[in-house]
């Protein structure tokens, strides 16, 4: 490195260190992430990740005739009472599929989707998402959508099409920053006027004390009626609720209300401003120069290193002293590895508590602050009322409708997802068997062949969990589930396994949630895969594959290929 390089290096680092970074809000970031996670459920997300995973064992045979390639995939064994999952794949004559698919639903041969326009979305563009219709899952045309409502979810039941979405706030939504109107809209398939039913959401909170930063919605329709779930990200401004509180006051919220926190509890992952040096000290401690005692330490670093060496099993929190609302405090051990996470009201002394009613917050506002989904039911899809979920459910909800009623996978704020069911849409109970231990999140839920299937993530991969007579049957999926879709003919999953870029892309399919087939997406599409989504229709599965970009960044546009999988029998 030349002198100039070194000077440049020093100067750039000096400038970077001088950038004033405002305090972050990890709870808000996680809430945004949960909303985005919801958008992916049952749809598509183009992502290239690295992970390890396995897939079900299959028998694959291929044949070629006249340039048209066919690959048959068949599960090697059969289970009594189950339906074979064999698919025959071929490249479709069309190539412009839905790139950024938000929600898709199909009944009979008709599918509706909320998506960007067919074709590739150029890098850096954020095109409009609207309602599309298809008779084959391959070719999509724009469908008229409801007036004044931006559709975010779609459900098709027979000849009726439902959307759930948001529109501008009205006086009815309350004096809350960021609040929007949420509505279920419906029309008859084939085009008729749309009608809106505004969901009864109104916040009871003092003026200016509550702000909504986003909403996620889902809708499911079946013979028993229509269920809509609304997840709302809401935050409270404690300075508007409690006198003498400032922006810097540390506080925590729970089901009972708000706790104002004071000084740290030093025995529980305690920290002080001096601990800002701990990160650097950890790295320093591991460096060869430090081990060789090649340079003297400043007093601050020496103190930090000493504290590291004396750290207990929970070690130290490495974040700066938080301000405002905090839920948990992460701690790392002396080795720098994660050791524990301590609830904020254990890491800090509780100095005051306020119940929600003392703060003037109640009803749906309280639910939104606690992350609980608001769930609404209508027997005819035109007039909705709120229904209650069992205690212990919180976070984003994914809804499914079947002939026997409804099911929902509710993501806990910090715990595993919970599956709840209802025969009538109004009375909900937890599923008779909890999801297996180790399931950390849900990516989709639906019914296939009258069986309930939950696509779930674990800490090491992903699996489809099918509710059978004696519990949940787990079928391994690729570690990175990219897209999930349920449809009349079954359930399809696109996933990627294997470390590196590109990984091993696979498409899996089941007609009953029990027997699964799998195929290499690279093989069936005849080339490299960079991303994919899928639509499951009445008689075929359509996967839209995006190729990796090539050429110069300014001109690179990925190509698309569509492949069709047709079930045998």
């Amino acid at each position: 490195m030349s002198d100039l390089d070194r000077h440049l290096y020093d100067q750039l680092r000096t400038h970077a260190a001088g950038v004033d970074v405002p305090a972050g809000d990890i709870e808000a970031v996680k809430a945004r992430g949960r909303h985005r996670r919801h958008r992916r459920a049952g749809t598509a997300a183009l992502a290239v990740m690295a992970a390890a995973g396995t897939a079900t064992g299959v028998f694959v045979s291929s044949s070629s005739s006249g340039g048209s390639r066919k690959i048959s995939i068949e599960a090697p064994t059969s289970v009594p009472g189950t339906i074979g999952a064999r698919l025959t794949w071929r490249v479709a004559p069309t190539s412009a599929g839905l790139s950024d698919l938000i929600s898709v639903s199909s009944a009979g041969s008709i599918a509706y989707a909320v998506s960007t326009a067919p074709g590739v979305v150029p890098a850096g563009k954020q095109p409009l998402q609207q309602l599309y219709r298809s008779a084959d899952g391959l070719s999509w045309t724009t469908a008229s959508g409801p007036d004044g409502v931006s559709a975010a979810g779609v459900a098709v039941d027979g000849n009726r099409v439902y959307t759930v979405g948001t529109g501008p706030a009205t006086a009815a939504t309350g004096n809350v920053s960021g609040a929007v109107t949420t509505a279920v809209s419906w029309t008859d398939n084939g085009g008729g006027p749309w009608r809106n039913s505004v969901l009864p959401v109104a916040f009871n909170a003092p003026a200016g004390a509550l702000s909504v930063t986003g909403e996620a919605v889902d809708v499911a329709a079946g013979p028993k009626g229509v269920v809509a779930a609304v997840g709302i990200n809401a935050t409270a401004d404690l300075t508007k609720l409690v006198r003498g509180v400032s922006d810097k006051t540390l506080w925590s919220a729970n089901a009972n209300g708000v706790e104002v926190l004071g000084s740290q509890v030093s025995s529980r992952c305690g920290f002080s401003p001096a601990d800002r040096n701990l990160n650097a000290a950890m790295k320093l401690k591991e460096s060869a120069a430090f081990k060789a005692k090649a340079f003297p330490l400043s007093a601050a670093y020496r103190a930090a290193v000493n504290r590291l060496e004396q750290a207990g099993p929970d070690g130290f929190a490495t974040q700066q002293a938080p301000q405002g609302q905090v839920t948990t405090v992460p701690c790392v051990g002396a080795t720098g590895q994660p050791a524990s996470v301590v609830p904020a009201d254990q890491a800090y002394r509780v100095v005051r508590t306020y119940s929600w009613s003392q703060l003037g917050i109640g009803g749906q506002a309280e639910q939104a602050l606690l992350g609980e989904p608001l769930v609404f039911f209508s027997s005819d899809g035109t007039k909705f009322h709120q229904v209650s979920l069992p205690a212990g459910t919180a976070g984003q909800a994914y809804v499914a409708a079947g002939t026997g009623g409804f099911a929902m996978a509710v993501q806990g704020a910090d715990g595993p997802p919970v599956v709840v069911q209802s025969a009538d849409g109004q009375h909900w109970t937890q599923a008779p068997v909890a999801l297996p231990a180790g399931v950390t999140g849900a990516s989709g839920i639906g019914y296939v062949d009258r069986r309930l299937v939950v696509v779930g993530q674990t800490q090491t991969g992903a699996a489809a969990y099918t509710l059978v007579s004696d519990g949940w049957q787990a079928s391994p999926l690729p570690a990175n589930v990219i897209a999930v879709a349920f449809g009349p003919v079954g359930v399809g999953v696109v996933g990627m396994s294997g470390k590196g870029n590109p990984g091993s892309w696979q498409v899996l399919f089941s007609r009953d949630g029990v027997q699964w087939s799998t195929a290499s997406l690279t093989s069936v599409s005849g080339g490299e895969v960079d991303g994919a989504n899928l639509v499951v229709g009445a008689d075929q599965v359509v996967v839209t594959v995006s190729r990796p970009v090539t050429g110069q960044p300014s001109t690179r546009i990925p190509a698309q290929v569509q492949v069709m999988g047709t079930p045998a029998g």
Partner: protein
Amino acid sequence: VNVPATAAPPEPLVAPLPLSHDFEIFYAEARDTVIRAVTMTTGDRDLSVEAVDEAMARAFQRWSQVCRLENPGGWVYRVALNWATSVLRRRHRRWPFSGSAKRSEEPPSVAEPDVMRALAELDVRQRAVVVCRYVLGWSEAETATALSTPPGTVKSRLHRANRLLSSRLAHLRDQKEL
């Protein structure tokens, strides 16, 4: 694999931390550094904060995958930079880089304004490479992975950037020699 209703799986000897907790640690450790790096690349502190928060939300959304990457911070940097780029395009704004990013109360007095002016002359892609290499301290290979760019491209961008910076900052070398 059938999971019977009554059979509980054996408890692991050491319970792994839930991934969300793992993310909290990553967030606490990486956020400020990435914001500084993106600010150095875009020149807009507020936009960079917004971009990194968005990228962190996306990282949390798919944390089970992102945490397995060799450099999750690199992934967040790239996503944040792409997001900031698309926002600027939508706003029809030119790159705001002026070397006058918001400073802390006590900016280092030794910072050389000419360096920032020279940095501002670079193409944003060259600037990203310079920031990864010199601010974040990544190797060329690590920079290539983080930016999802071929190593040869990183090398050539760095070469062109260094050539321009050298020509603009020749006077500093002269001063140092004095």
